[in-house]
């Protein structure tokens, strides 16, 4: 469990940042807490805040969250063998708490020959509790800061996205996809295109990976 501390620390910081930027964007404390309680997905929650503050249509918010989280299909598929012994309710509970972080920790644990699902549940639920507490702390701080643009706090969400993208890059094709998506989306936004067009550009960019040789 010891190797989980950096992940827990990052969760605390990112969760607090989420609470701050969500509060600064004008969302109500109950709505922000609701996102962390029910959606429980870091990058998508930041995306929701940004899209809601741009007054994007509800369907676009939900579709963007779906796109960002589609990768969980792959993660859950790779963990399926380990949870197969659980009854359906247990598997659904395990699925609710599945995040990039709990997936990475569980995969490491099982690759080292670990068999116990308790490891997964303890870690995944700890992340959930911490994420929600950090969100509330951020909401409290965000309410006290005042005008977000004065301290550059409004840029925290963009900086978080950039960091997520940089850390997620594995192959040269990822860099091409990220730059293409960002440039096309930025150009569309400057031209006055709707959020729908911007998200569609993002959803099309990974086709580069499908056709790239390596």
């Amino acid at each position, binding site marked *: 469990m010891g190797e989980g501390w950096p992940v827990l620390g*990052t969760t605390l910081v*990112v969760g607090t*940042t989420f609470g701050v930027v969500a509060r600064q964007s004008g969302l109500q404390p109950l*709505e922000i807490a609701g996102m962390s309680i*029910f*959606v429980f997905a870091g*990058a998508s929650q930041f*995306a929701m805040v940004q899209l809601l503050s741009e007054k994007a249509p*509800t369907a676009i*918010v*939900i579709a963007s*969250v*779906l*796109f*960002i*989280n*589609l*990768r*969980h*299909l*792959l993660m*859950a598929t790779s963990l*399926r063998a380990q949870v197969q012994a659980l009854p359906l309710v247990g*598997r659904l509970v395990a*699925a*609710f708490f599945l995040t990039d972080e709990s997936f990475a920790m569980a995969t490491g644990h099982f690759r080292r020959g670990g068999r116990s699902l308790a490891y997964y549940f303890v870690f995944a639920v700890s992340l959930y509790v911490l994420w929600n507490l950090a969100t509330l702390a951020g909401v409290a701080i965000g309410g006290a800061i005042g005008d977000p643009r004065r*301290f*550059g706090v409004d*840029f*925290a*969400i*963009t*900086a*978080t*996205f*950039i*960091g*997520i*993208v*940089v*850390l*997620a890059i594995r192959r040269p094709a990822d860099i091409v*996809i*990220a*730059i293409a*998506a*960002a440039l*096309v*989306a*930025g150009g569309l*936004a*400057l031209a006055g295109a709707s959020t729908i067009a*911007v*998200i569609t*550009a*993002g*959803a099309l960019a*990974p086709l*580069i990976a*499908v056709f790239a040789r390596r």
Partner: protein
Amino acid sequence: MIWIAIFGSAVATFLVRSLPFAVTIRGRLPGGASRYLEALPVAIIAALVGPAVVAPASALTHGAEPVAAALVIATVAWRRSLLAGVIVGVVAVALLRMI
């Protein structure tokens, strides 16, 4: 409306997390589909970054955001730390906007 977005997003997220645990799908995804799914989050998040950097608050940037974005990329690539990147980005944007 916001609560519909929250519950809709919650359902969408739970669906993709639970589907492989709940039902058994025979066979494997074709390579192209799985490469698409793997690259999708990076692309969607990058698509959210682009407009926020070139047109924050729906108007052409005065230069602070692109410079700060470059600093964030450099910091995260160098330190491999999200936190360091966010701190550098926020401080840089706050300073650059004063110029």
